[in-house]
């Protein structure tokens, strides 16, 4: 393992060098809040920013993504044949991603990239992406990442982990992708590994200790699906829900999408959009029957999926990385931590 010391004064210059090969993404202040955006020339990520409203999942899994296209002109030989749209999959790097947000991509992978099925759009975008994480030295009150098998310094799905030590970043180079990015930036001030690891370990312990928010889910595995599904509390939990899509759209691990075709003149585009299980339309059948007709069923679905169906099916922990965005942004303050505790009790 290599640890590089980066003087913060040289950080932006380094990023500029990397732009020859990489499209950069990072947190940018937009109006009064932060969003993950593609960084234009001379735009740099805000590394001090608090959480972005939306998670970085859109860099690899965009809210609206073109998939296929077809020509509808019957005079053409290839008419009505769907072909994959051309998308730019040249290298991209996400800068300052929170370690648990990066871990969320591992969860998305369980759906989009399996032995049996490979979603080409996700896989190509994922392969093109270098994840440059920034360890969270001062976790906020919404962060319960350490309760769900990740944490403020989790390296699981990072190519590089940056640790802010004041005037410098220590860059822990984790993968070959990370190595390539760091070298393209021209960062080469390798530092003594032992000392650096000690510093990192201290900061990590401090950060993990600072996390005040916890959630227990140890008993969920021992409960049957029906026991939880038929639990008496769902109506009360769902009462305040307005069935908007906020929780699912801000979530780094929600992966559901809807496919749409749109035609204009002689061309057709097939694209997919994030979908939300909070919407009635999500499960409405063509017959008009809807297996999740009421909001209680929809609210239950979201929590059962994240906290029971997913863990049962994949045995990879919860479908949640504890970023706290849904807790923070839910308009009616439905709190997954509270519901998880209720399910676990």
């Amino acid at each position, binding site marked *: 393992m290599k640890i590089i010391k980066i003087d913060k004064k040289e950080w932006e210059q380094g990023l500029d060098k990397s732009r020859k090969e990489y499209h950069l993404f990072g947190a940018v202040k937009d109006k009064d809040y932060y969003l993950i955006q593609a960084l234009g020339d001379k735009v740099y990520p805000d590394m001090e920013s608090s959480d972005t409203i939306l998670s970085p999942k859109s860099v690899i899994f965009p809210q*609206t993504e073109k998939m296929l296209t077809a020509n509808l002109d019957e005079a053409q030989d290839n008419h009505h044949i769907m072909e994959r749209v051309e998308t730019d999959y040249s290298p991209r790097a996400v800068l300052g991603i929170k370690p648990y947000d990066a871990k969320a991509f591992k969860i998305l992978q369980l759906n989009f990239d399996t032995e049996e099925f490979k979603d080409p759009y996700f896989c190509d975008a994922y392969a093109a992406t270098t994840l440059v994480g920034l360890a969270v030295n001062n976790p906020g009150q*919404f962060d319960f990442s350490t309760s769900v098998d990740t944490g403020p310094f989790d390296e699981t799905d990072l190519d590089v982990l940056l640790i802010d030590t004041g005037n410098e970043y220590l860059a822990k180079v984790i993968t070959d992708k990370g190595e390539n990015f760091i070298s393209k930036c021209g960062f080469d001030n390798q530092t003594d590994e032992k000392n650096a690891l000690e510093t990192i370990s201290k900061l990590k312990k401090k950060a993990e200790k600072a996390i005040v928010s916890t959630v227990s889910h140890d008993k969920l595995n021992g409960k049957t699906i029906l026991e939880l599904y038929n639990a008496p509390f769902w109506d009360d939990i769902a009462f*305040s829900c307005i069935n908007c899509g906020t929780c699912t*759209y801000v979530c780094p691990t929600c992966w559901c999408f809807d496919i749409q075709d749109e035609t204009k003149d002689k061309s057709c585009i097939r694209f997919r*959009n994030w979908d939300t299980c909070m*919407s009635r339309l999500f499960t409405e059948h063509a017959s008009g029957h809807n297996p999740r007709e009421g909001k209680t069923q929809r609210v239950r679905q979201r929590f059962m999926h994240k906290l029971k169906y997913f863990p049962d099916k994949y045995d990879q922990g919860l479908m949640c990385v504890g970023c706290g965005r849904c807790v923070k942004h839910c308009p009616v*303050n439905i709190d997954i931590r509270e519901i998880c505790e209720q399910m676990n009790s």
Partner: protein
Amino acid sequence: MHTYTEKIQNLAKDVLKQGKAEMVIGFKQGTIPMAANPFVAKNENDADNLIWSSTCGLNLANYLPGIKKCEGKIGIIAKGCDSRNIVTHIVENKIDREKLYIIGLPCTGMVDKKQIALLFDDEITQFSEEGNTLIVKSETKEEKINKQEYLRSNCKTCTHRNPVIYDELVSDLVEEQIIEDQFADVKKIEAMSSEEKWDFFDKLTEDCIRCYACRNACPLCYCPTCFVDESGPQWVGKGQNTDDIKTFHYLRAYHCAGRCTDCGACEEACPMDIKVRNFTRKLNKDSLELFNWEAGLDISQRPPLDTYQPDDPDDFIM
């Protein structure tokens, strides 16, 4: 604790005990600072969880059409705007007046949580209020601020703080605000050139993620299937195409014409801080100027868009 909290709890207990209503819709304390969670108290014990604060910014009238199983009356805590939406529900035949037991709450305004958050570089960890003073804390500092300066913009121009319909009141009525120019914000937009207006509205909706929180927090938006959710025919594209996004916002606003009470729930709910009231405000101004109409003041009055008068303004045709 807000002075209303204890009164609400006692009133709700009494209402439930006496059987004046089968349930009382109110708020309970949220799990995070500056959050209140809509909640239904079904018995006296539940009623202990009811609270009031200047963060109870959602409109509880929104929950009435969703209550299917209730043989007795539904109790509801209603501040001025909630009560006006209850009137609108009654006028639009969504619910019977007889079905309701309304606990009116003279309101002194809801706070703008997003503005308050901007006072801090870090997260707000505590929020409390003493009369007109808000005490807000983060890890690094404490601010004592005047509530009136941090009201939501709809509360700043509100002239109906007192409930317009109720069975009981939480307190004496409060003095209504006198607003010199209620639509200064709309006039600013009206004064723009067409290009400037396009630009303004394009920017306004550019961050929309189509979560529909604005629509779903709105008591007016009770259509069984919203036009954006229709699939046969599909009126509006589903993606992040900006024209589709704008179509949603513009059409939704028009569906609220003559009905909107400017309760601010749409903006309160928006996770992207989009000021969607910019659309409905203009329609409220038109309703007032053209029809001398403010929505939800009187259950005996039909709204201007479902009545016809020979002297209705028709300048737009001529």
